[in-house]
């Protein structure tokens, strides 16, 4: 087997495979929650599993915690097969979505629970709990009951209670979902600090891409019980491997077209029906002319101006009409009608704008982008086999989640008419 081979080879487990899911499948009745997932998580990593609700990310976490037994596949922790171990014998601890603090115990007793269960000496419990209370800065609240403390404090107690057992991996199941936005951001930073301080592996499950992007070392994007892509936040944002990832992580504009020709090793010319022909795009895949592709361009990659931009062989420019403007404080969102497409454009607010007069409704504008800022997805890519039958417009409709609203609007809404 994979693991034993590695043991023989290196004498100890590779850091790369500290936690490993191997071909894990789990079904509930007719619903396949986790479908043949293979995933490796490194030691000490802040790893996020990101996906819309119902994608199977929580099930994957519960399989690692031991609350669910996979139908197929194995789970390894530090080289040991833990698939059959009950949850109380696994060196992983979990922070639950609604914290699951014991309502009849005080904060102190909640944190001490894990040590009391294993009958550690009283002295040790005292000092360990004290340490944890200091870590979460809640020494003053130690005698309060869970219902007497705030949501953020509950969350911290839940983290302390899970950490006191010195788990090899801390599992966090949407721990911030119950908090309001401001508190969420603060708690996220605190979690990150705690991660740096204790240095153990964190596996963080969330549907909020902002949370995942800001703290994770690596992210696995899950959809429909499968893992779509694993990578650093930048990799996932800048180079999504599937149209689902491109659409789920941030906003994007999708264009459906085909290859005209390869210009050289780096660039290709595309024909986007209903938009324009001869669009230049970065491409490292040797695709034949006529091959169907998606072109994805993030809203912030566009530039919008009332004057025609200077000509440059690597700049694409198109003329359109502004149909909608939304002021969002840090930036303004424009929807620009270009032939049959509505393109979503974000423009950050800088002091020195090229045009001093702001762009308004019905203004004729130029929309332009650099060839390197768009990325091309092969429409018949084997990696995306699950999406082959699904045009990107459909992705949002299959799951219960609400995809980026703009995603559906920006794609070929007019073509459907």
């Amino acid at each position, binding site marked *: 087997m994979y693991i034993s081979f590695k043991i023989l080879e290196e004498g100890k487990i590779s850091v790369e495979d500290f936690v490993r899911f191997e071909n894990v499948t789990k079904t509930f009745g007719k619903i396949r929650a986790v479908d043949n997932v293979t995933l490796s998580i490194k030691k000490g990593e802040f790893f996020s599993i990101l996906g819309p609700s119902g994608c199977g990310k929580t099930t994957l976490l519960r399989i690692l915690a031991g*609350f669910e037994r996979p139908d197929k596949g194995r789970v390894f922790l530090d080289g040991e097969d833990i698939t059959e171990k009950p949850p*109380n014998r696994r060196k992983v601890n979990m922070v639950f979505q609604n914290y*699951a603090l014991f309502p009849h115990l005080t904060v102190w007793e909640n944190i001490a629970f894990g040590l009391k*269960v294993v009958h550690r000496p009283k002295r040790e419990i005292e000092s360990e709990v004290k340490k944890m209370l200091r870590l979460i800065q809640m020494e003053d609240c130690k005698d309060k009951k869970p*219902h007497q403390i705030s*949501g953020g404090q509950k969350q911290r107690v839940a983290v302390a*209670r899970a950490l006191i057992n010195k788990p090899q991996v801390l599992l966090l199941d949407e721990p911030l979902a119950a908090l309001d936005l401001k508190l969420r951001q603060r708690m996220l930073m605190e979690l990150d600090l705690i991660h740096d301080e204790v240095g153990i592996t964190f596996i963080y499950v969330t549907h909020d891409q902002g949370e995942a992007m800001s703290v994770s070392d690596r992210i696995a994007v899950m959809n429909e019980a499968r893992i779509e892509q694993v990578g650093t936040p930048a990799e996932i944002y800048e180079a999504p491997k599937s149209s689902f990832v491109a659409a789920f992580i941030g906003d994007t504009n999708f264009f459906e077209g085909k290859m005209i020709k390869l210009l050289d090793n780096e660039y290709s010319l595309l024909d986007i029906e209903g938009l324009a022909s001869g669009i230049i795009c970065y491409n490292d895949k040797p695709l034949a002319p006529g091959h169907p592709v998606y072109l994805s361009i993030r809203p912030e990659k566009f530039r919008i101006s009332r004057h025609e931009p200077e000509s440059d062989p690597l700049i694409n420019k198109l003329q359109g009409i502004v149909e909608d403007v939304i002021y969002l404080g840090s930036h303004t969102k424009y929807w620009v009608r270009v032939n049959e497409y509505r393109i979503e454009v974000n423009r950050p607010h800088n002091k020195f704008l090229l045009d001093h007069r702001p762009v308004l409704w019905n203004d004729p504008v130029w929309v332009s982008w650099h060839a390197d800022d768009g990325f091309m997805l092969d429409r018949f890519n084997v990696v995306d086999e699950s999406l082959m039958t699904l045009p990107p417009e459909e992705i949002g409709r299959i799951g219960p989640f609400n995809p980026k609203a703009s995603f559906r609007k920006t794609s070929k809404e007019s073509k459907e008419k």
Partner: protein
Amino acid sequence: MNPSSRSSRNAWIVTFPSFVWLIIFFLIPTVIMFLIAFKPSDPYGGVGVGWTLANFRVVRMANFFSILWRTVWMSGVTTAICLFLALPTGYYMARVSPRWRQVLLFLLIVPFWTSFLVRIFAWKSLLHPEGVIKKILIWLHLIDPQSSLLYTSGAVLMVMVYSYLPFAILPIYASAEKFDFQLHEAARDLGASSLYTFFKIFIPNIRRGIWTAVLMVLIPCLGAYVIPDLVGGPNSQMLGNKIAQRTFVDRNLPEASWLSAFLTILVLAPMIATFILQARSKEKYSVLKEGP
């Protein structure tokens, strides 16, 4: 008129009928009973004139203390057995799928469609010397053919457990159903065994349900009359039987009243104790009802 006084007036109007009902048919008769306990009896079974403490003598009847003791321990044992059976049942009912829960609840309610008295008579024929249970037990060589199942304290205990078990299961189930079973997962995750989790997490969190179950079983048991009368023998009489005897056979109402008053206090004492305990735990566990 400010809204708070209006709402309090409305609340008063709504509760008024039941309030009056309780005063007329519960509070006043109870007070009358306490008063009669201090009246002399007259030879014709009525209540005499004047006041007396003589009814207190009833405690000197030969077997008062053994009957009192039997009443207390039989009620206590019944309550304990009911709790022992109801805890796992309530736990299980809260964990099965909602469909099954409906079925189980229905099965729990079904016996109440038959009259209480009829069900006890059914037990009488079941436990009868010629009855099925005895024959099976003899066939299995578990009992001596000469011994009796009916008219023993054991029979009374058994029928009391049978009668009051649903009253223990229902409140425990009601609390268990509100219990957040994710706490179980949390405890297991932190290293606790299933048994440890049951006793240290589940039981303390459904404490209110347990207290209610204790009340619902213990109080009717203390006042039990029909069950010991029908399936019990001379050696399994309880306080309730003595009161009936004083009323119907001896026709001594004041002594019956005195015993009744004594029983009322015996019942009220655990009730008040429970209310105090509940009020305390209510403070502690109010989060259970409100939720986070």
